[in-house]
């Protein structure tokens, strides 16, 4: 336990010194803010850009607050996740490749503490970023579009944070298993590809971990079907534990591949 604390402190210091703790939340805030403002001023932007013929009528859809939060989530799901994965996918493998890991591996540390500290800090930074992004998005949505129900929003945020937890566990486990490039490709393929797959044929499958973001958004609307939701939650928790166990195992067995 004391090893874990020391390693977490070291990881936090590292993420502060490399400005990760600063720029990741800023990126998510920008992503979260852009959608409410862009949709609100869409008509003005089209007028300013020009090219609209005289007497042209266009009906803009009436967005509700939940639609705007959904649009922000869409931004987080594409650009946000790629940024998060690309930032944290090298967390173990890069240290192995450039030899810094030898400083750690020559000491009698437990590999589970090493892996758990990496995963914990990656998840913490990702969660801070996502919460900051949603807070900014919510602020503008409430100003421009009207109120959002608090208990629903918090339920949605909690579900989405579980999804972020899962993605970061997969990212760090991949980082422990493969070299950085392979790990990045596999993780982005699994997460983004899975999300696209889910949006294409998701309506035919009721239980899959990629359903978490969409069902978190469904929590925000008036009518949602909660029958498969609990099963999905349990499945995600199970997968989270499996990813962590795989990560710890691979961390141990790949320790010898460190460049000296």
């Amino acid at each position, binding site marked *: 336990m004391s090893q874990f604390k020391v390693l977490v402190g070291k990881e936090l210091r590292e993420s502060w010194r*490399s*400005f*990760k703790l*600063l*720029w990741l939340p*800023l*990126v998510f*805030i*920008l992503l979260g*803010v*852009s959608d409410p*403002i862009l949709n609100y001023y869409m008509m003005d932007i089209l007028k300013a850009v020009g090219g609209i013929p005289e007497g042209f009528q266009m009906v803009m859809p009436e967005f509700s607050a939940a639609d705007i939060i959904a649009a922000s989530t869409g931004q987080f799901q594409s650009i946000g996740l790629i*940024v998060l994965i*690309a*930032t944290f996918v*090298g967390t173990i493998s*890069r240290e192995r490749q*450039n030899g810094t890991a030898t400083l750690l591996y020559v000491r009698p540390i437990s590999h589970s503490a090493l892996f758990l500290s990496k995963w914990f800090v990656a998840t913490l930074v990702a969660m801070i970023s996502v919460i900051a992004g949603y807070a900014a998005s919510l602020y*503008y949505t409430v*100003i*421009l579009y009207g109120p959002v129900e608090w208990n629903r929003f918090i339920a949605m945020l909690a579900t989405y944070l579980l999804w972020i937890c899962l993605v970061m566990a997969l990212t760090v486990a991949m980082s422990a298993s493969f070299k950085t490039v392979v790990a990045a490709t596999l993780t982005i393929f699994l997460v983004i590809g899975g999300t696209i797959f889910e949006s294409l044929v998701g309506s035919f499958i009721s239980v899959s971990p990629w359903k978490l973001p969409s069902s978190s958004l469904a929590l925000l609307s008036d009518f949602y079907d909660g029958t498969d939701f609990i099963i999905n939650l349990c499945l995600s928790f199970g997968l989270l534990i499996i990813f962590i166990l795989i990560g710890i195992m691979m961390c141990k067995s790949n320790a010898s591949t460190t460049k000296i």
Partner: protein
Amino acid sequence: MGELQAVPWALIAPLLFIQLILMVVALIDLSRIHATNGPKWLWVIIIIFGNLLGSIVYFIIGRKQS
């Protein structure tokens, strides 16, 4: 001048401010770092003119971790 005043600055200003902070953080990091992937002056141009994406790209692939 009338057009400039018509812009709702109270809504837009935080957006510009955050973008500015991101740019400044990227430039500070660039000035401190020992070596980057590719020439440093190129990253200065990318960060300044590539507003949001420039800084993100710098943080993800520009920093050489070694």
